[in-house]
């Protein structure tokens, strides 16, 4: 079940032109679109770590 959470960052990155194609609000000085994509890149690691830890504990 948790495995499907991996789709969230994938959709967020792929859908960036529809969700975040703008400059404001600026994040750390960066245009919003660039901040959105890089933020979700970092979230990919977090989500994968969460899913993996859940699956590992379920296996045990």
């Amino acid at each position, binding site marked *: 079940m948790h495995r499907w959470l991996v789709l969230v960052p994938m959709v967020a990155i*792929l859908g960036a*032109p529809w969700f975040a194609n703008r400059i404001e609000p600026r994040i*750390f000085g960066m245009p919003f679109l660039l901040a959105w994509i890089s933020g979700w890149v*970092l979230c*990919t*690691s977090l989500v*994968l770590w969460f899913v993996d830890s859940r699956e590992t504990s379920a296996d045990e």
Partner: protein
Amino acid sequence: MTTAVEFGEATIALGLMALTLVIAFVLSIRGRGAQSLEQWSVASRGFGSVLIFMLLAGEIYTTFTFLGGSGWAYARGAPAYYIIGYASVAYAASYWLLPAIWRRGVSWQVITQPDYFARAYDSPWLGRVVAIVGTCALIPYLVLQLKGLGILVSESSYGLIHADLAILLGTAALIVYVVLAGVRGSAYTAAFKDILVLCTVVGLGIALPYTLHGGIGPMFDTLIAKQPEFFVFPERGLSGTWYTSTILMTVFGFYMWPHTFGSVFAARSDAAFRRNAILMPLYQIILLFVFFIGFAAITAVPGLKGPDADLALLRVTRLSYGPWVMGLVGAAGLLTALVPGSLILMSTATILSRLITSSTGTDARGEVRIAQLMVPFVAALALFFVYRGGQTIVTLLLFAYAIVTQLFPAVLLTLLWPHRTNAMGAAAGMIAGLGVVAYTTMADVTLATILPSVTSHITDINIGVLALLVNIAVLALFTLATSGSRPAP
């Protein structure tokens, strides 16, 4: 006319690059004694997880990242963002894809991509077709590394060495590196490279905006005030549709490279893929700093058009800092071309060697010897395409991806419906997809020129995705047309 000052600066920069090259040679020759790609992959099981992580990242940071990424940020703006996004989506997808491929590959005891196809489709000739497709994709990948090598040597020499000669010198260094070192010690060289790349890219990515604009925020303030549309996707051309379809194409092709696909079978368990999938997106964040360098170069070195945009990183470094920094950046760039370049060159030579020896029954030692003999020929073929020129580094990689992605539908079929696999259908699908890529490239047409009255939401789709759709349609037709199913392999 070269001045004595320029000659002195070029000597310092080139001296630092030569020193780095020597260190890379020494690290490789002192490495472990694997003599083939498979031996190297299997030997890599003995490395710790940190070195494995470095090794995987070593394959990812190529001249595409270093020069191409900054060049596209400089010339294109928002469309370059696909570069930071595609690998993360691929790692997330690998969470499902790689364990499935690994389980099948291990149960069939295959170690290469052509072996996998030959076994899955019960067809040795399909294995040979896949080997040829893999080679066709690896050549443009090698071309972009050689192009990058030429740019690095030429720019670091402050123009003393002409670009054409610089490409020759870079290629000679690559051939010597491959023949002398093979793939020995690649992990240590990759670790050395990554530390150097991390330091230079993060250092420059922070220092350049501060030196030229007073900070990252002020840099964007200046650029947005001048050209706000540069930082969002345009309505047409390299639009949002192009971005999403390009990411999808590169994600489907990400693990289809012959050397990447083959390395999947070397893992001890599928836990390794999950661990790497978690860590690797973090590595992509360095691309933000690559973009900052490209953006900082916009006002500092204006006017770089077409393929010259790939020079942005080196030109802005040369303008802003002295020859010592230039030499350090050149050295890091040199390694981003040499380490992945050697892997691609070895991989291509090995595939060609197998194609030749599969019908003659040569032993493994003879196979390695033939692969080593193939190295200069493969490099010469790549050089031919380098000198034809005219493409940016990113365009070359997208072309290579459009080719290698054509293997994906046939792989997916082996995972989802193994009892319906049909070698003729798989080959026909690949050939149809490659036909679309070849036609659109050679005739220089896009969907927009073929269908001028259709909305740009459709016509901006990356041509590689269109080729993939044609491939899937042909594969489906053949698969459905063949009566009934057969036992799963």
